[in-house]
């Protein structure tokens, strides 16, 4: 019963996402129009030289001589069929490139989300229990510091300390080059390379979720049901503690869902610093190669990823908190 309700809710949310995706496509199209030169110029540039007749022929094959509204429709049709264009720099379709680079980014993101939400919930509730004692003050100070540190700089300083000075972790990449590890050795190798990028990104989000969790637990402490439970002759029963945690976690989860887009953006700088071969590094490379089509493709896929994650969070939220009305 609850499941079918959630399912229809998910389907309706999915249909609501359709206009968002269409607007994003239109935005991409607008950015393409704003960029200097058109596809024919790019092609001609790649080819080295071109006659005016050849350029005109190229424009008509791409439909660039059509009215702008028609061009937009053509572009939308193209994107909806997941044809994101062709990257001449890499010599392969943009969609294939993105799919190949998707999983390193997902691995990094899931690790960071799990670490920052998990540890943030623990640290935040610990700080709230030790309110205004030295433990709370220490955690507050560390979160203020971590919250102000630029992510890329933190990554570079970790490289200086743990890779260059101490030699504990590799400086870049996802796997040891030319080692060709298989099975468990490969997993261990990737995990070893994952440590520094994951720690770098986690620090910032850990600070955010710790602050949020602390505030959220303190808010729950002032609620009637906790105040009553504390006045019971047995003191604070374990049951109340569980309810506090469960209720206090909800805003943190919402925030984690909202922050997925920011996390994807943050992965651009972290992947650049650590040469982690994901979407972020691909975005950086496309920036240097002036491969706008690829950059737009990454932007589109990332936005779709955010929409999907937000949807999952909303549906998960409705399962966690039965009070939410699935209208």
């Amino acid at each position, binding site marked *: 019963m609850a499941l079918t309700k959630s399912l229809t809710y998910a389907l309706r949310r999915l249909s609501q996402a359709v206009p*968002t995706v269409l*607007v*994003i496509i239109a935005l991409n199209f607008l*950015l393409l129009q*704003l*960029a200097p030169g058109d596809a024919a110029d790019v092609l001609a540039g790649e080819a080295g030289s071109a006659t005016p007749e050849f350029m005109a022929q190229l424009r008509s094959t791409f439909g660039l001589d059509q009215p702008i509204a028609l061009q937009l429709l053509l572009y939308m049709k193209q994107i909806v069929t997941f044809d994101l264009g062709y990257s001449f720099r890499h010599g392969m379709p943009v969609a294939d490139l993105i799919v190949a680079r998707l999983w390193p980014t997902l691995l990094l993101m899931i690790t960071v989300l799990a670490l920052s939400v998990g540890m943030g919930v623990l640290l935040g509730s610990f700080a709230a229990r030790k309110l205004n004692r030295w433990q709370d003050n220490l955690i507050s100070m560390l979160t*203020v*510091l971590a*919250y*102000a*540190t*630029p*992510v*890329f*700089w933190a990554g*570079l*300083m970790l*490289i*200086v300390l743990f890779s*260059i000075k101490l030699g504990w972790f590799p400086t870049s990449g996802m796997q040891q080059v030319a080692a060709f590890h298989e099975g468990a050795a490969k997993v261990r190798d990737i995990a070893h390379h994952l440590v520094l990028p994951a720690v770098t990104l986690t620090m910032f989000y850990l600070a955010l979720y710790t602050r949020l969790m602390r*505030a959220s637990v*303190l*808010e729950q402490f*002032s609620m009637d049901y906790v105040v009553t439970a504390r006045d019971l002759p047995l003191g604070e029963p374990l049951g109340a503690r569980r309810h506090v945690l469960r209720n206090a976690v909800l805003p943190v989860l919402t925030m984690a869902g*909202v922050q997925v*887009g*920011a996390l*994807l*953006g*943050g992965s*651009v*700088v972290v992947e*650049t*610093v650590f040469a982690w071969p994901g979407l972020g590094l691909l*975005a*950086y490379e496309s*920036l*240097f190669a002036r491969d*706008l089509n690829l*950059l*737009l493709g*990454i*932007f589109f896929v*990332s*936005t779709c990823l*955010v*929409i999907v994650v*937000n949807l999952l969070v909303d549906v998960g939220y409705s399962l966690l908190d039965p009070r939410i009305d699935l209208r």
Partner: protein
Amino acid sequence: MKSGVLRFIRHKPAVCGLVLLLAVLLASALAGVVYPGDPFRIVGKPFQPPLGEYLLGTDMLGRDLAAGVLYGARTTLLVGVVATVIATAVGVTIGGLAGYFGGRLDNLLMRFTELFQTIPFFLFAILLVAVLGASIGSVIFAISVVSWPPMARLVRGEFMTMRNREFVQACVSMGMGHTRIILHHILPNTLSSIIVTGSLMVATAILIESGLSFLGLSDANTMSWGYIIGAGRTVLRTAWWICAAPGVAILLTVMAINLVGDGLNDALNPRLRSL
């Protein structure tokens, strides 16, 4: 007002933040006096470590790092403040209209705001600067475009509650125009929340700016902290201090602004102190 100042002063971290922030402002104001001339100028041997001939040493081209950091403060603060002012203006307008008029306009404007909140904002900023060309104007534009949504949401909420308060109802029944009610009666009452959120937005804007210039998306003619770190990254193994110094500058500035913002929040919105 007086009690607000008192509350701010009693908030120790906020006072530390304010002192730090004033130091950064002073440094950026005095950049031209302490280091006259172009910060891109080559002054001596490259790769000199800090605390030698030059306070923070020199970079891989022999440019004085201390001069770079001081001039970088100018760029960073300028971009942070101007982008925030623009984003605040846009956010207040959209949020105010949505919250005051409600109904279909509210629905439309909030869908628009949600759209901007769905987009991965840093990627969008990268795209905008890449398309418009790396100049200080396009960086400011890109940061403003990605940072107004939280302000719009906040102002919408404030306007919605104000709209139903008795004093606004009284204005309506007196036949006062919408513009006058909004500008003279509702806006002044929401100003404290706008100031607090705006001050925190400057910190975020600075982080975005440094990230963009780290990736090479900054005006080639202005020194900025992210640019120094991005350029120094290639020689991290041999000269780590080139990256270290501007990063500390970013950290201290952003932390100072955050602390001042928190202090302002306590001073201006005493009702919210419970958290």
